[in-house]
């Protein structure tokens, strides 16, 4: 009992958000892992006599225009949508951090070229630019990941470069240089650990918006293709039956909203926890 009370005492406004976020994303993760065991029906199997069944006991989320169970599709879709989002974030974070560190560390001409490129890319609205690249590359999940990575890495590069420039003149870096560390060793052992916390915060904050980007592009027909149960594709499929069978768009829409919310809350919580200025505020409440 006492432990429970202690737990609740520990909770305050800031980390409630973090815990809720972790709970939601945790549930999502479990659904992704156990998807095949949770699905009651084959998510891609067509069965026209069962089309447009409203939510009921057999089909909790109803069925779509091809008679496929929407709950099973939403569950299977979590695999498609969330793995895409995570892949995008990891690839763009790795790429951005690498380029940013190198650019900040070496400086000079290369830094100027890379940062002007970053400036140019930042000048475009993310989704519009991703849309343009996607159109160029063609449809498909792989191309969708490439398209969003192409625009997303710049944010990480900016942060990593800023940190690298700050660190470059630190005494312990000078010391490391003096004992003969190579550039690669310096980057790996001293620079990278210093930026990783900032990058982690950004990663957790970004996943939510990446889920939305992926869904938007899939909705526009540029990402996953039918009958793949991607959430964006499902909404796009259901759009024409909005008045007739609203459950076709409602449930995938909710899935997107809840997962984006979960990741955003977790991201906020982690930022508050890791950011030293915010940490004091969190602890003092």
């Amino acid at each position, binding site marked *: 009992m006492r432990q429970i009370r202690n737990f609740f005492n520990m909770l305050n406004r800031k980390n409630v958000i973090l815990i809720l976020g972790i709970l939601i994303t945790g549930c999502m993760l479990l659904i992704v892992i156990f998807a095949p065991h949770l699905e009651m029906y084959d998510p891609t*199997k*067509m069965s*026209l*006599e069962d*089309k447009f069944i409203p939510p009921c006991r057999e089909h909790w989320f109803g069925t779509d*225009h*091809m008679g496929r169970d929407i709950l099973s599709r939403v569950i299977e879709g979590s695999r498609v949508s969330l793995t895409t989002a995570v892949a995008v974030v990891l690839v763009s974070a790795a790429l951005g951090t690498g380029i940013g560190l190198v650019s900040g560390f070496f400086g000079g001409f290369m830094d100027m070229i890379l940062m002007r490129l970053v400036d140019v890319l930042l000048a475009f609205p993310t989704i519009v630019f991703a849309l343009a690249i996607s*159109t160029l590359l*063609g*449809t498909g999940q792989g191309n969708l990941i490439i398209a969003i990575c192409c625009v997303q890495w710049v944010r990480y590069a900016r942060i990593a470069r800023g940190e690298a420039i700050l660190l470059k003149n630190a005494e312990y870096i000078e010391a490391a240089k003096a004992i003969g560390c190579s550039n690669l060793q310096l980057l790996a052992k001293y620079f990278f650990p210093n930026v990783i916390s900032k990058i982690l915060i950004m990663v957790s904050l970004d996943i939510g918006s990446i889920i939305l980007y992926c869904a938007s592009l899939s909705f526009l*027909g540029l990402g996953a*293709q*039918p*009958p793949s149960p991607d959430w964006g594709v499902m909404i796009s*499929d259901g*759009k*024409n*039956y*909005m*008045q*007739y*069978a609203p459950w076709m768009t409602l449930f995938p829409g909710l899935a997107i909203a809840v997962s984006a919310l979960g990741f955003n809350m977790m991201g906020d919580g982690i930022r508050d926890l890791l950011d030293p200025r915010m940490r004091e505020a969190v602890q003092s409440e």
Partner: protein
Amino acid sequence: MNYKGITKVLAAGLCIAMLAGCGDNKTTEPKTDTDVSRETGKEKVKDSASDEKVLRLAFPSTITSLDVMDGDGATMLKEVAGVIETLVNVDSNFELQPSLATEWERTGDKTWVFKLRDDVTFHDGTPFNAEAVKWCLDRSLKDNESLRQTTGIDTVEVIDDHTVQFAMTEATGELPEAFTNVGTAIVAKSSVNDAGEFVTAVGTGYFKQESFDVGSGTFTCVPYDGYYKDVKTNVTERKIVSIADASTRSLSAQNHEIDVATDVPFSDLETLKDADGIQVQQFNTARTYFYSYNVNKEYLKDANVRKALIYAINRDELVKDVLLGVGAVPEGIFIKDMPWANTEVDNYDYDAEKAKAMLEAAGYKDSDGDGILDKDGEKLSLNIVTGSRRPGNALIAQATQGYFESIGVEAAVEVLDGNAYNEVIENGSFDLCLNSAATGYVPSASYYLETYYHSKSSNGKNIGYSNPELDSLIEQCKAADRGEEKNELSRKAQAIAQEDAVVYTVADYGAVFVLSDAVENFSYSAAVHDFIVPNEVSLK
């Protein structure tokens, strides 16, 4: 109360206000002064507009240009706005009717002479005559390669003020048919500015252009006083709005912002049947959904494999349950209302067992037990591509995928936008492509066959389809004059094409229309490109 307290109170107040706003208006208190004044304002607008009858129409794709050489622009201007006209018209029985031309005659294998009306003026007041026809067609033919191919016109020659002679590149009996095509509509010289850019559609129709806003895709036109025929309508303006999205068109019609909307979602037929102030109608046109096999692929060269895959598709169910009854199950290639349609062909009606047996006979077995048939270690796996524009494309492709799966054939579906689709088709990275085309775009017995089945057509080239016997029949049919002999040649060609089963009609196109109850005299014609709004349409 401290600062935080005040913020909380304010926030609570705001929440309550928002919740109150969500409530049902009918149960709220008496109307405030602003409400009343707003309503009377609306009444006033209605009063002053009572003698104005504006017919508001939704056009299903975005109009970016009014140039008659632009397919969408010309279709809108002729069929929906009634601003431009062609030399010849086609009625709903696919018979030719005089329009700007009164009569025509084939004077040689490769020459035609057309007599023009002498009482027609363009909207700018200039007379419509042979010179005007020559100028307009020369311009269109020069810059529009596909029009040159469709019509086959080599040169245009003025004989006298109201007689034009056309020399053709090959023997054709179908020039009058080609002149029903929207791309051959006649506009005045003043449509084009000094720099040669098309600026205004100056045609000869009952309506003349008033304004065009490219940004919003809104086009307005008003009756032209100098029109050569008597038209009974009370419409004082037509306003055509480009709305590319089907659901948006439907909602605009339901909100009474639009009087006629076409190609709305199929489910509207069910959802809106009891809606107030609007009526929903279904209409079948001479447009088809058809599959083309890429016979460049080795395994699809086997006619039995192609036929087996067709047997797997349940077309009755497809039309009834996937297209929700909007469309028809085809009998052969053309809709049966067309005089040259051959309905006595094998349609390969749904028979999943036969499909399986045929594939087995062709050497396909599920040797590794994964549920997918294979032969020589290669899985029977197809890539179906289709465009996104027509509402049934994605649905039919997805359903086909399901049917194939049930006989052990794997299929992937790609629904692509215009350019992406063309690219895939041109580089040949597909097994099966689903298309939709108007069989009466040129209302002749040979046009559709020549465009999609002939080895020299772009479809024929893309899929590698060539049958010399079929090609020859199509060419003979094209060269023949309109009549039973021509139709018979077409029927023979259809029989061969259907036996080859390379290009295969899977469903006839249907469209759902939402019409305001105020609309009168609206009629359908299966012969038009999309839908036609007759000049006589009136408003109650």
